[in-house]
């Protein structure tokens, strides 16, 4: 498809949308809900309120600023949007909500419309006037077109408009003189919060938790008509029932509670997260799933994930292979989607915190079509991944507001340990040791947290550098990757994780006194090799900070400084090591005055490919 030069400014994606219709003033509710969705994007925002006339207020600012700037708009129905640009700088004219020609239909949209160019041209030919460069703007004009044709039936107009669209969307439509909001979703999340004579629509749960904990998840192809007293969901013209879920998170979970940043709070929640997940699983009467049964003889299990979850997947591979003797293959979901392979795996584990990660979902759907058995490890109840998978393990880490994943990663590790435990293949004595070890983890992680001040000192040192390496071996190699990712994400330092043995195959050329190296040195079968690596690194004048087990005196001769973690069994070292590296990243970012919870250019749940 020929792309116009305007394409750069046009394509929108990765946003948060909200809607309210009820018996209270919409403006404060919409603004508050949007502020809770800012982790999805915060370049620009806007709201539209319909009462008497349809008023839109939007700008390329954050929600807090908009709230201060905007006049008080009266009305008990409205929609709102907060945006994260994938293309083009944020601007007032490109911000949502977008209107039709009459100014009586307003739309907020999360997603990408692939054929918006041709639609736009056609609408212009039909006399419609466009003012922005966005793909979204075609939607209100399409609805306007079909509204007249459909005898002013908003729902039918929206359905017809959506038929013309190719792409992904979660939209909320507000039309003047219609006592309803119309919501629709395809390949982009959208939920409805049920209240008392009021209803809420949002991209994600935290937006509505202040008001209700009763939630309905819309599914792809659904069109929901929401009034203040009712909700009607249709799909392909037929009425469907969507189950109501009760969210177990409390509003407190989604607030900082004394901590300066959500990330620090979430790091500190980890002992409790471990304890709570263990309590639930240890008292479960049925095994979660039989991993061995998922594998078909010689075929390996495929583990798919993105980002931090990919690092959990790598650790899962070590666990499956060492503990169960099952061959496991790990792939980036995004890469997997582009390889033209003959899919022969029958057992698939998809790890995704949000369950809405576009790359992972696409891969899952492809694999399901060829008959694979899908297990997903995810954190958000009722999400898209859980609806595609055959079995779901929920990690119950609670909402993770900070963009950088911390507790969700540790919770994913717990799920993987638990999977191994509930597998019939494992040796009984090994299982016993695993269980005892797991129960001790909350205390061990707390001890790492209690040692924060020491880690902060190392972070202060690190904060002066622009390039840092992390090295590890075996089950701690993914920990090195994760440590580097955390540092990268929130402190903007160029950090790289390497398998320690790989450094001398090239990356050594980068080492100098300006490249500190964090070496993960647990007391397992990689210990001696790591000591050798450290000697080699030090010979290149780099500073080495070693992450070691408490009581290890030998290491002090080799490394420049040391961060200690409590003694745990080798299989659990990734847990305490990761927590220490999370803190290292946090304090480094803090010293560099980085925004931490909402790093530049990143969004929490990547719902675009």
């Amino acid at each position, binding site marked *: 498809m020929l792309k116009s030069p305007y394409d750069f400014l046009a394509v929108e994606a990765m946003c948060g949308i909200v809607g309210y219709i009820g018996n209270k003033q919409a403006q404060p509710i919409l603004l508050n809900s949007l502020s809770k969705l800012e982790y999805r994007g915060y370049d620009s925002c806007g709201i539209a309120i319909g009462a008497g006339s349809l008023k839109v207020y939007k700008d390329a600012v954050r929600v807090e600023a908009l709230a201060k700037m905007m006049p008080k708009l009266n009305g008990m129905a409205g929609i709102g949007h907060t945006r994260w640009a994938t293309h083009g700088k944020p601007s007032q004219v490109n911000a949502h909500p977008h209107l039709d020609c009459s100014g009586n239909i307003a739309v907020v949209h999360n997603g990408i419309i692939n054929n918006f160019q041709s639609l736009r041209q056609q609408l212009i030919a039909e006399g419609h006037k466009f003012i922005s460069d966005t793909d979204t703007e075609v939607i209100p004009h399409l609805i306007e077109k079909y509204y007249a044709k459909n005898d002013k039936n908003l729902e039918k107009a929206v359905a017809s408009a959506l038929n013309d669209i190719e792409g992904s969307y979660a939209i909320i439509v507000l039309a003047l003189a219609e006592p309803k909001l119309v919501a629709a979703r395809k390949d982009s999340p959208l939920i409805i919060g049920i209240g008392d004579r009021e209803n809420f629509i949002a991209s994600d749960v935290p937006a509505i938790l202040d008001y209700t904990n009763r939630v309905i998840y819309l599914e792809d192809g659904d069109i929901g008509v929401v009034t203040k007293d009712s909700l009607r969901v249709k799909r392909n013209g037929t009425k469907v029932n969507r189950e109501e879920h009760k969210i177990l998170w409390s509003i407190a979970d989604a607030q900082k509670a004394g901590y300066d940043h959500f990330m620090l709070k979430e790091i500190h929640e980890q002992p*409790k997260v471990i*304890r709570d997940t263990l309590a639930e699983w240890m*008292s479960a009467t049925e095994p979660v799933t039989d991993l061995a049964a998922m594998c078909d003889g010689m075929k390996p299990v495929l583990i798919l994930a993105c980002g931090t979850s990919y690092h959990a997947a790598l650790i899962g591979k070590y666990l499956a292979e060492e503990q169960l003797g099952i061959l496991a293959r790990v792939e980036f979901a995004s890469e997997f989607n582009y390889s033209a392979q003959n899919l022969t795996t029958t057992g698939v584990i998809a790890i995704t915190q949000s369950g809405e990660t576009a790359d992972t979902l696409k891969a899952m759907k492809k694999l399901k079509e060829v008959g694979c058995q899908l297990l997903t490890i995810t954190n958000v109840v009722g999400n898209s991944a859980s609806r595609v998978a055959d079995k779901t393990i929920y990690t119950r880490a609670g909402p993770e507001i900070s963009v950088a994943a911390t507790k969700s990663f540790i919770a994913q590790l717990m799920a993987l340990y638990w999977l191994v435990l509930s597998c019939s293949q494992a040796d009984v004595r090994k299982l016993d040791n695993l269980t005892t070890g797991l129960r001790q983890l909350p205390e061990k992680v707390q001890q790492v947290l209690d040692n924060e001040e020491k880690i902060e000192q190392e972070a202060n040192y690190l904060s002066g550098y622009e390039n840092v390496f992390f090295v590890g071996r075996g089950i701690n190699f993914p920990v090195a990757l994760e440590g580097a990712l955390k540092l990268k994400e929130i402190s903007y330092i160029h950090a790289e994780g390497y398998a320690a043995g790989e450094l001398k195959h090239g990356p050594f050329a980068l080492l100098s006194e300006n490249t500190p190296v964090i070496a993960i040195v647990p007391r397992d079968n990689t210990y001696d090799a790591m000591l050798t690596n450290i000697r080699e690194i030090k010979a290149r004048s780099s500073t080495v900070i070693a992450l070691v087990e408490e009581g290890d005196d030998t290491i002090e001769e080799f490394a420049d400084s040391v961060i200690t973690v409590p003694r745990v069994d080798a299989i659990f070292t990734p847990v305490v090591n990761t927590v220490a590296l999370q803190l290292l990243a946090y304090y480094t970012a803090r010293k560099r005055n980085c925004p931490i919870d909402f790093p530049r250019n990143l969004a929490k749940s990547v719902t675009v490919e």
Partner: protein
Amino acid sequence: MKQAVILAAGEGQRLRPFTANKPKAMISIAGKPILHHVIESLARNGIRNVVLIVGYKREQVFDYMGSGEQFGIDITYVNQKKQLGTAHALAQAKDAVKDEFLVLPGDNLIEAGTIARFVTIKPEAMLVKRVDNPTRYGVVTIEDGMVKNIIEKPEEAKSNVINTSIYAFSRDIFNRIESELDIPNVLNNMIAQGKYLSADETEGTWLDVVYPWDILSLNNILLRQTQAGMGGTVESGVSLKGAVAVGKDTVIRSNSYIVGPVVIGEGCDIGPNVCIMPATSIGDNVVVSPFSEIKNSVIGNDVSIGPGSIIQDSVIDKGCVINGQFTAGSGQAEVKVDNEYHSINTGAMLGEGCSIGSSVVAEPGVIVGNYSQVQSLKVINGILPDRSLVL
């Protein structure tokens, strides 16, 4: 009164090892930190707006209290960077409080009834109480319902009426703090300048925990209000007598015998064949192996107790891993804390994260520091500092 300021920044040095990693207000009694009991008492009296002054190990408070939502209250945290005294702590709250507010210590155990009348009193006022050991506290002289003076820790107490450190103040108090570090000094100055400070006496619960073994007596008193409840599962042959509260996901295995009042947390694995005798509190994620008896003790989260253990009148802090045949029996002991000798009847006090080998015997009154390791078959006594190794 609609608002309260709670001072929860203090360390509580005499409560080592238990306060090495948490402030005094977070010491657990009957399954909940003292601070939780204080907040609950406030909420029951309609006060749901709380300013929490934190300092020492404040993350422990954040992690447990959160934003207060789950306790039905709104919490504003104020950080007292250096713990210089109660008046200094109160001064930190200046920007967070409205016109009238209660001030309470976060580390004195109270119940709703203790302050039921006091919450209706007009500032400035002080809550007083008669106690058996007034020389430990600020002794108050009262005339016509007004406080005349407060004498801290007198050699000889003129009366047994003491200052509970619970006050009703107005914003005027901030004008009077000046450079004073402790509230009683501020009040004495205030009275000398002719300002009135009324006294209200309470007969309700007001308990102080000063030494590690005080935890047991407070635990006892609070557990009396336990209501039986079963959130977990119970196997066949288990006997539960009296008020036994069991948390969710906990399993009590066959032939265990539990006599209340006993509180057991979530995700625990108790038994089989375990006896738990009154008055015992057990935290979350605790494993008690077969043929063990726990009596009148406080066991923290994440503790693992090996088979055949006997634990009486003891406090075991979180994360301890104790191997089989551990004996911590009760008995007379002379314990030295802060250069003072105390003659008490008690079991063992174990700090956080200790690792105890098999068949270890803990003599009555032993205080084991945090993260200590004791090899098998050892007999331990006296006071062991943090990270001791008994080999």
